[in-house]
């Protein structure tokens, strides 16, 4: 008789129909799980190679900044420090937009997906004045508020690594904020998430982002007021206790 789990596994990525030895999992499944967890942890803890990112965004100029979180452990313990600049940045501007490439909770995801997404967006933004690309480490989403304010940017676009799961460890999220300044609330931003090899493509994400940027500049806002008219519906956040910050 054929294995009915083969058909059922096409309906879900969940680890269903695993074998048993006694009450325990067979060693094959144990090791597969450990590898997935190891990759997720490596995605969190491998530092962003900022030089490689800078070369990948060339010929655009870029500047490097860091938050007040001195290391990864501090970053994980103290989200407040990850939202504050820990170094100077030369004031400039005004600009139509600034792009911040931030390591977030998956520097590996940022390393892979941020440069191609950035280029896909800029190709669709002729005539926009765009600030030098900011590459930020130990950074949370709200770090973009301080950066955007210093650069007098109309819009701040933060490309940031999302919290890794076992099935996807390298997912990128994008947060768009109109008139960034310290103290902006999450409800004043728009988010595009799940940009990865099996998720949203660069082209689809860039299309959505450019639409949001154009509308935001036109309507002079981001956040809840803009969200309702998005071309692609964002799924509502699941009703589960806290989970307030995937990357933030």
């Amino acid at each position, binding site marked *: 008789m054929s294995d*009915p789990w083969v058909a059922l596994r096409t309906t879900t990525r*969940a680890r269903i129909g695993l074998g*048993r030895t006694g009450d325990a999992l067979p060693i094959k499944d144990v090791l597969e*799980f450990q590898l997935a*967890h190891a990759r997720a942890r490596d995605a969190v803890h491998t530092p962003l190679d900022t030089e490689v990112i800078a070369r990948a965004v060339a010929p655009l100029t870029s500047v490097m900044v860091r938050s007040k979180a001195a290391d990864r452990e501090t970053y*994980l313990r103290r989200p407040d420090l990850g939202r504050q600049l820990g170094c100077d940045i030369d004031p400039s501007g005004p600009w139509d937009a600034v792009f911040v490439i931030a390591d977030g909770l998956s520097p590996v995801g940022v390393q892979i997906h941020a440069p191609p997404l950035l280029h896909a967006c800029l190709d669709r933004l002729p005539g926009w004045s765009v600030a030098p690309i900011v590459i930020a480490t130990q950074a949370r989403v709200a770090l973009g508020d301080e950066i955007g304010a210093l650069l007098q940017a109309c819009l701040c676009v933060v490309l940031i690594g999302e919290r890794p799961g076992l099935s996807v460890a390298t997912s990128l999220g994008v947060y768009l904020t109109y008139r960034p300044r310290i103290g902006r609330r999450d409800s004043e931003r728009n988010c595009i998430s799940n940009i990865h090899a099996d998720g949203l493509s660069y082209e689809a994400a860039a299309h959505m982002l450019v639409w949001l940027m154009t509308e935001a500049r036109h309507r002079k806002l981001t956040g809840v007021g803009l969200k309702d008219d998005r071309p692609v519906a964002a*799924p*509502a956040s699941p*009703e589960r*206790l806290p989970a307030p910050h995937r990357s933030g």
Partner: protein
Amino acid sequence: MTDYVSDFHGERHRFADLKDVLAKASHRRSGDELARLAAESDAQRVAARSVLADLPLAVLLNEAVVPYETDEVTRLILDSHDTAAFAAVSHLTVGGFRDWLLSYDATPERLAALAPGITPEMAAAVTKLMRNQDLISVGSRCRVVTAFRNTQGLPGHLGSRLQPNHPTDDLRGIGAATIDGLLLGCGDAVIGVNPATDSVANGIALLDMLETLRLRHDIPTQTCVLTHVTNALEIMRRGAPVDLVFQSIAGTEAANAGFGVNLAILREAQDAALSLKRGAVGNNVMYFETGQGAALSANAHHGVDQQTVEARAYAVARAFSPLLVNTVVGFIGPEYLYDGKQIIRAGLEDHFCGKLMGVPMGVDVCYTNHAEADQDDMDSLMTLLTVAGVTFLIAVPGSDDVMLNYQSASFHDILYLRSQFDRPAAPEFEAWLERMDLKDRAGRIKGPRVTRLLTDV
């Protein structure tokens, strides 16, 4: 006004108020450090405990940590306090209470009678004077029995919530994960789905599917879609099959407002669910989730340490006679519980406080990938909790929740705990497993094979 000064072993420590003593007496955790409430040194932590040990329990009734005038949770706690039940321990200090709880006098019967007299602040305070083994010892003597289509919390049993989540709420995918769990003997506490899309229409589709499955196989369990309470009310108005009403809750009025709920809406939902009369052996119709860090993440903690404010959520739960309550202990992230040690401690604290207050406490033994924790830590916590008599644990296929992106216990883990400690599921559910020929002669769940359930998806 009480003076909070310690001269413990010749070193003077002064504390600002009751909240300060409670916070500084807490075992170390990242959330209290993030909130700038934690002890500044280990010696100060012990000094705070010495102040707490000498503090009369009654002080915790007289000095509210969150103001009575502006917080309905505080009003609920104080207005519903059972002074007759409290009389058994009202003469004790917090330290004396700890010693009494560990004495042979603290029998299951006496602890059950005491529960309505215990406020969350008393439970939290005594927790800070207890080692992990104390939390296990006393927790295992607290019995809280509830019922709907089966009986949860009976001594010597361990329940499990089957959590068959799917990233796009695909009905076949959720059905497949549900069958996987049932074949491994899980799901007596509830078959409970966290929907990826939180809407009334989606909730009804999921409930209809689960109801069909339950009726076809006559499964003596309850189903739940963990949607917002206002959605559940609308779903009930439309006549869909709601067994349990779910809601995330926290320990202050402001934090509950962050979840979009208050006590009145919870009461309305409980009344609506009771009116459906869907229970077979009992009428506990509510299911709540809580977790340390929830109030702080909503900036609604009022300067109260995260373990104390968490215990206050159990006072909210208690008011609605829930079938099930669980803390999602490792889910909220390392900024609240940093590593395996902190998650294990918090899991035991939450279980103990809930049980002491008379709440049917379960735990989601879990962690996220940015916490310093792994499967070995979860093995420790689930083992300790089973020894502590936890009402139920959450279980997902292969420990991997593919919708919420975190790791919980697996169906296999539940098998291990049942075998290791001889803890069967609810008796009604065990009888069903036998009827379905899912158990072997030794009473163990049979190995993987094709059954009627499996070919049914």
